[in-house]
């Protein structure tokens, strides 16, 4: 692994290297300024680079996926309003409209975020279902994972279908 030898070299460089280094610049520096200058005793430590844990990486990937699928690129370019509004003809009051009607390739910001959340929920549900089948857990934990997983997938699928039917009334007809 690349990172481990680096940390060892950094701790090794703290002590004076009397065993003979091959580095010519080190020897040059030892003679020219540092034979009469005394470097102060610092307690600095160079930061060690460690690879993040798999769960951190996975959480980042899930977050990025959520942002992409919510249509954040569309939001940045087209800058739609957060939520749409329509005026009620009879009373004149302004009613909010959540889903941009009529087009598949347009959205409001809140609409995109809620749909993206449903997709991520469905994915998390499948993962929970898979975790529930693992044998090395307590039974109560497995049951709760399984129920949560199934309910997440069902809710996510039903809500996604509902959203797409609101947006495209002619879906699957």
């Amino acid at each position, binding site marked *: *692994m690349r990172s481990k030898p680096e940390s060892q070299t950094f701790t090794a460089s703290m002590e004076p290297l009397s*065993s003979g280094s*091959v580095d010519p610049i080190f020897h040059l520096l030892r003679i020219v300024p540092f034979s009469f200058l005394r470097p102060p005793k610092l307690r600095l430590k160079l930061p060690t680079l460690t690879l993040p844990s798999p769960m951190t990486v996975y959480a980042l*990937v899930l977050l990025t996926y959520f942002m992409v699928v919510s*249509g954040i690129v569309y939001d940045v370019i087209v800058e739609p309003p957060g939520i749409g509004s329509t005026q009620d003809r009879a009373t004149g009051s302004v009613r909010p409209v959540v889903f941009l009607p009529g087009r598949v390739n347009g959205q409001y910001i809140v609409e995109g975020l809620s749909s993206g959340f449903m997709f991520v929920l469905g*994915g998390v549900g499948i993962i929970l279902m898979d975790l529930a089948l693992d044998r090395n857990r307590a039974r109560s934990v497995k049951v709760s994972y399984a129920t949560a997983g199934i309910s997440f997938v069902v809710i996510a699928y039903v809500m996604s279908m509902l959203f*797409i039917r609101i947006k495209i009334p002619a879906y699957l007809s």
Partner: protein
Amino acid sequence: MVGKAEPVNGSVKSGSNQSIPATMQSPLKKSDLIPNLSLKTLKLKTKQQELLIRVSILCLVYVLAFITRLFSVLRYESMIHEFDPYFNYRTTLFLTEKGFYEFWNWFDSESWYPLGRIIGGTLYPGLMVTAAIIYWLLRFLRFAIHIREVCVLTAPFFASNTTLVAYFFGKEVWDSGAGLVAAALIAICPGYISRSVAGSYDNEGVAIFALLLTFYLFVKAVNTGSLAWALASAFAYFYMVSAWGGYVFIINLIPLYVLVLLITGRYSMRLYVAYNSMYVLGMLLAMQIRFVGFQHVQSGEHMAAMGVFFLLQVFFFLDWVKHLLSDTKLFQAFLRITVTTAIGVGAIALGVGMASGYISPWTGRFYSLLDPTYAKDHIPIIASVSEHQPTAWSSFMFDFHILLFLFPAVCLISAIAVSATIKNLTLVARAKSKVTQTGSVRGSSSSKGSSKASLDQSQPFQRNGAIALLLGAFYLLSKYATHCTWVTSEAYSSPSIVLAARGAHGNRVIFDDYREAYFWLRKNTPPDAKVMSWWDYGYQITAMGNRTVIVDNNTWNNTHIATVGRAMSSYEDEAYEIMRSLDVDYVLVVFGGVTGYSSDDINKFLWMVRIGGGVFPVIKEPDYLVNGEYRVDKGAAPKMLNCLMYKLSYYRFGELTTEYGKPPGYDRARGVEIGNKDIKLEYLEEAFTTSNWIVRIYKVKPPNNRW
């Protein structure tokens, strides 16, 4: 069932041998012509049964991928769709007629008048050469087939091949079950279908096959470390480069994959062999395509691959030195020096290359990946292409359906999720039945049976739950299949050149105006006539109308397009000057006011203004808008009401009644009555208007005689 057949075959073998002659005798007595075709009498072993199932599933998936793309061929006819495929068709026709050398050195003076276009050096030949090879092969086998049929059906054929590659890829990464699911999912995925439907003779149809093939061969090369697979992936990469400009994503994704492997500590000799062979040979082969040229060493977008190449050499060198040295402390010092030197030299080389201009910076198309708003502000012609529009959530849902749920479950390969889940669930479902089987047949395994039984007793509903979940998974997959077929049929099977709508009584009305207009151009204009239109229609006019155009879909010259945009947005006399300078004989506009067709030139007009205004500051977008709003009715801006595009679209339209109960001159696409009904043309005259007024052609009058 497969699970149950095993103990039957294993324990009752003698019985089955004896039973066969008995069962064979009775059908022979009944009838000699009807063979007894049960699997038991065929005596297939489990492995052969499994192979049969796998092969039959793959065959079904292959056929499915082909036939789901045939909607438009069945509804309309076998024709080329859209705009870009017409250029590809014209070049393939030229290739089959004149041969490869003429094709490779072709300079076309019939487009981009008066500049011309070096077609041989500015296209990706993979698609055309593939279709020509299939055509010549079929001709050699004496199938008298027209090149158009081959072109229309190339994309579905390669989509079927992609499912095979997906199967092998899934098998390589996980196991054959995942491979089968991957093949099935990719066969009907709407996102892929939209670019590879029959008639869509475009680069992506072939390129997606080449892409998946390159990835599969490279992963296989990394897993086996064999030079043969690495060279095969280099040739697949060459095919990819020859097929599509999107090969740049491959040359960046594969180094990214190698980089992730290096970071997570998976460097090995296999990786070294695979990437080196693939990079060097792939780069040399890619330079054979004239359009790509020396970009692999000169362009900033390709530098990542080179960087990773040198990084791999550094890794190998350090590994070798570590192997030679026995002193670890010495090696640490050497490691530090080498890493610093390598990074320093690399950075200096990159800096010198970019500063001296040898390495070009990222082009606008790829810079938009870093900054999505770049194209909108700086390059309107990239922003105006409909395929470059940003994606809203509903487009994702439309194109991927439940694959969106499966993606987070296992990053990037949803087939693994489905296959693993289904496998786990079927194992659980079959565990109980297996326990009872082994418990009853073999008494010696009673201890094993009892332990399994105890597990089952602790979760009595596990089997039922597993079956319920299996049914749920199958329900989701069936909904996916329904969705994909519906989307393909409704949204992605339209040829775009033939329009369809529902009539008043629910019958289907077909508008074939485009082809009517191009055929009129082909038959009623002099052969050297030059046609000016917006760049969308250039390829179609050249391919079907067989006339010279001023600008076409290649959009390689922004100033030329801006000149046309300026002409369309100016008053008639200024536009006449520009048209005389370009030798234009005919002007073609697309108008949707009578049919309600919304992709016409008036709706695209603001892009013409923006692109023209980008080069000629005399065209200003606010001149055409009223309070920031784009209108064509009485309240429209005066410049809008008198510009050339408005006049050509609405000439004689003010006398026409389009809808019952509305005044004459009612524009059905915009939903308003037009502002300027009394239009008089001074320098042009109307030559042809199609039956539904969709395409209108005007002739540019020669200058007046002075005496």
